[in-house]
């Protein structure tokens, strides 16, 4: 589904170099690493928000390296949810459908299964400004799913939430991913979060992917010191 080949990118002095990554269709893939390791930069490149220096990005077999973000069919939930404060919750969710020539009536019908799955129908008429952190993330997720993207990218979707809400949202994310059969890339730096949601995990450190495996294999067989360090440190959280 997602293939990243020999990709390098740069932001200021920081470089993410020679990334090779394959995410299978309908897989829940977690990208994990310490703060400043290049996770967010890499997903922004997948979304097309920042350009890559070399290499290529393929989504669903198509080379999207030079595609603008809207043509990549990627649903992106940014770190701070980035809901549009001048729109109601409902208008936020149908926002992507406006640009796909779907009228409001049909759009409202189309988002109903997502709204039901996320249990946010009571929020639809509210403004986004007075939503709780968990509610904001649910609305941002509904908005990202509303146009049936091929790939869902979640950039630290629960990092700003308290522990109980974090677990609840993680379970919900996994359920949604299964129910909607959508390939998902989830960024986090919390071991427990990764354990709940992941099919596979890639550990990224200083702009390089150092190991990719299932949660159990990573715990039982960390191949490099940095993986041990990340897992051990995160395990204490």
């Amino acid at each position, binding site marked *: 589904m997602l293939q990243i080949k020999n990709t390098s990118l740069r932001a200021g002095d920081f470089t993410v170099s020679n990334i090779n990554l394959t995410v299978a269709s309908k897989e829940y893939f977690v990208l994990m690493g310490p703060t400043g390791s290049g996770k967010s930069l890499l997903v922004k490149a997948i979304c097309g*928000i920042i350009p890559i220096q070399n290499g290529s990005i393929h989504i669903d077999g198509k080379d999207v390296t030079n595609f603008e973000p809207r043509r*990549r069919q990627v649903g992106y939930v*940014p*770190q701070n949810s980035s809901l*549009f404060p001048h729109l109601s919750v409902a208008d936020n969710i149908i926002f*992507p459908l*406006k640009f796909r020539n779907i009228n409001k009536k049909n759009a409202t019908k189309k988002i109903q299964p997502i709204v039901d799955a996320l249990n946010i129908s009571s929020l639809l008429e509210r403004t986004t400004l007075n939503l709780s952190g968990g509610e904001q993330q649910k609305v941002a997720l509904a*908005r990202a799913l509303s146009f049936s993207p091929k790939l869902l990218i979640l950039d630290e979707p629960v990092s700003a939430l308290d522990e109980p809400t974090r677990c609840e949202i993680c379970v919900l994310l996994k359920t949604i991913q299964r129910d909607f059969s959508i390939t998902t890339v989830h960024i986090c730096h919390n071991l427990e979060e990764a354990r709940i949601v992941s099919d596979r995990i890639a550990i990224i450190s200083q702009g390089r992917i150092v190991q990719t495996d299932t949660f159990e294999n990573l715990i039982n067989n960390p191949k490099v010191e940095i993986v041990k360090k990340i897992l051990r440190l995160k395990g204490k959280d």
Partner: protein
Amino acid sequence: MRLRKPELSTDVVKSKRNGLFVVTITSLVLFVVLICVLILADIFYLLHWSIGFAEFWEILTSPQVLDCLRRSFVTSFIALLLVVVTAVPVGYALSRYRFFGHSIINTFVDMPIVLPPVVLGISLLAFFGSPLGSWIKEGLQHYGISLVSSVGIVMCQYIVSVSYCIRAVKASFDNVDKHLEHAALTLGCSQGQAFWCVTLPLARNGLIAGGIMAWARAIGVFGPLMVFVGTGSRVQVMPTNMWLELNVGNIENALVVSLITMAMASIALVCVHCMAPGRKWV
């Protein structure tokens, strides 16, 4: 040995805070009184010379004053339109893009704010005396457009007020989180659509406030007009009319026009205040 945490005397803090409170609030009150005195001075002067409402209305509705009012409004609104058309893209470029010489250009944009207005008038005069300016002037004259007309007035108003609006619009775009634009791009917007549907609505209040400030500045332009278009009856606007009335000793007429200008400035300020987020009146 355990070190004791230094204790702050709450009385000292309280008395210092009270001292600061007294100094700042006194300054504020004195300043407000100064502004009120200046406004009231105009009204008392008119009352002293027995200029009541009937006389005030007579001066206000005289053909000359009405002509100035109409010209001031028409030219300042045309200038405002040009200001907004300039300020939105320029403010956005300064806010969102980083390029070689950004800081210098960012400072340079403020030049019309810091320059004495007369200098801008002289610069306009010099420009239209240059080969390029002469060519433009001849081109306009070919179509029967003279610079000593409302066109010249609009040019002066534009050049004096545009930087105020650019500054306000840039600040307004700065306040819009660019991650919202990124989100919009991934959700199906082109860059133009993201600007139109997300950034512009979120920057709307700052844009309107900037526009009102620029308009208030434009309607009060005086120095450049004196230099560039003069004070002929076909190019008289409110500030030049006030000056001419003062010159011939009609201080009452000048005061009536100045009160109208003050009233308009007050309305503009109220509108700007309305645009501020979380506004409170009391």
